[in-house]
């Protein structure tokens, strides 16, 4: 699936939808870039979304560099970075970025998202959670399921379009069950 196909699938969904965007492990880099291009370069501008990008995998400054390298507009992206702290990598803090001490602090992720939702009250919003697999490394299944349930339903009630990224082959049965419970649709990029 290429970036345009990803974008077209997303465009068929209304505001407030929640999507599991599963990226195939073979040719992962190409699939990841296709998924992000589809979301950030094609889908997001058309809906005029402001993006809240929750990263638990790659420090936000590296995400930003990657997005800029692929000529994605980062001026409308606010990062919630739950990984830089545990990598001891927050000496230079980026603008439009909120840092959380650890990906185990799931309530604090909810709180920072809530803060941004209130700050961006007048914007149409898209939230990307990158990724479910790294959250599963740091958290048990029960607390992760509870987190996802609260997060996605809260976002849905506020009309926020939600995309949960994950590596398809790395999703355990429990994670797949969680995603199918909270998400309206699944898109596989491979």
């Amino acid at each position: 699936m290429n970036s345009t196909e990803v974008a077209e699938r997303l465009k068929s969904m209304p505001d407030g939808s929640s999507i599991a965007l599963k990226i195939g492990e073979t040719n992962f880099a190409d699939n990841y870039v296709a998924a992000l291009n589809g979301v950030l370069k094609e889908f997001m501008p058309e809906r005029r979304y402001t993006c809240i990008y929750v990263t638990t995998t790659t420090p936000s400054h590296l995400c930003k560099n990657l997005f800029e390298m692929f000529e994605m507009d980062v001026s409308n992206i606010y990062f919630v970075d739950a990984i830089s702290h545990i990598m001891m990598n927050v000496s230079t803090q980026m603008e439009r970025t909120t840092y959380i001490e650890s990906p185990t602090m799931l309530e604090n992720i909810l709180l920072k998202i809530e803060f941004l939702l209130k700050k961006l009250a007048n914007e149409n919003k898209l939230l990307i959670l990158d990724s479910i697999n790294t959250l599963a490394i740091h958290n048990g299944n029960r607390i992760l399921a509870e987190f996802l349930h609260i997060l996605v339903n809260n976002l849905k009630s506020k009309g926020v379009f939600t995309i949960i990224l994950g590596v398809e082959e790395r999703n355990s049965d429990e994670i797949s069950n969680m995603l199918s419970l909270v998400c309206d649709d699944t898109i596989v990029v491979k």
Partner: protein
Amino acid sequence: MTDVLAEKRGIQRERCKTGIEGLDNILNGGIPRGNTILVTGSCGTGKTTLSLEFLVHGALSGEKCLFISVTEPSSKLLANLIPYEFFDDRLIEQGLLVFIDMPALYERLGLRKTEFTFEEIHMLVNAISGIVRELQIKRLVIDSITSVCFQLKTEEKIREFILKLGKALSDFGCTSLLVSEISPAEQRYSMYGVEEAIADGIIILGNLERKGDLLRTMQVVKMRGTSHSRAKYVLDLTPIGILLVPLLKGGMGAEK
């Protein structure tokens, strides 16, 4: 009609909205007006911040609010205040938000002893309720009641002070937060054990350690005059005010 009768007949008591969205949801609309609430917790848990936000929201809605600072000069307190985006200096200029330092009040009343007599307690209650009446205060914070109680020493005197003050404030329709300091290991909600029994409500703020992470928490354990959630919530102190989310219970020993 008394509050009890009103509640039995299904009539809701008037609410004093704290302006903290999550807390007002927990309290089904806010603190029943006229209640005296103990806001308790160890240091760094957000007691003063919560109390100040309660007053600022009241002042923004046009209510006259009073902060009595016992432990530190109010000038220092204001300098360290979280830079709230909704805070407006004009609230102080317009007299909607008033700060009084308790040591100055003691001085004015000639209270210089380390332990107050019953007569001096009555003087203090009369002085505070006089200010509340004169300025038509609708929201009051005393930070901290623990420091006041330190000079009362005995349970009888603490009981007398809080009961008399609570009655006077309630008669004026003034909703009050009494800040109580406890040590982290404390098994009760107040230093002397008397304050918690007399207060109409108790909001406890704490630090919860979970696998090395430290979370700020809040729990309403008692609130007369309203049904309310008794669950524990995690809070964040932000420039747009206190935010609350439920404590995730999957992390409470349910799995290793």
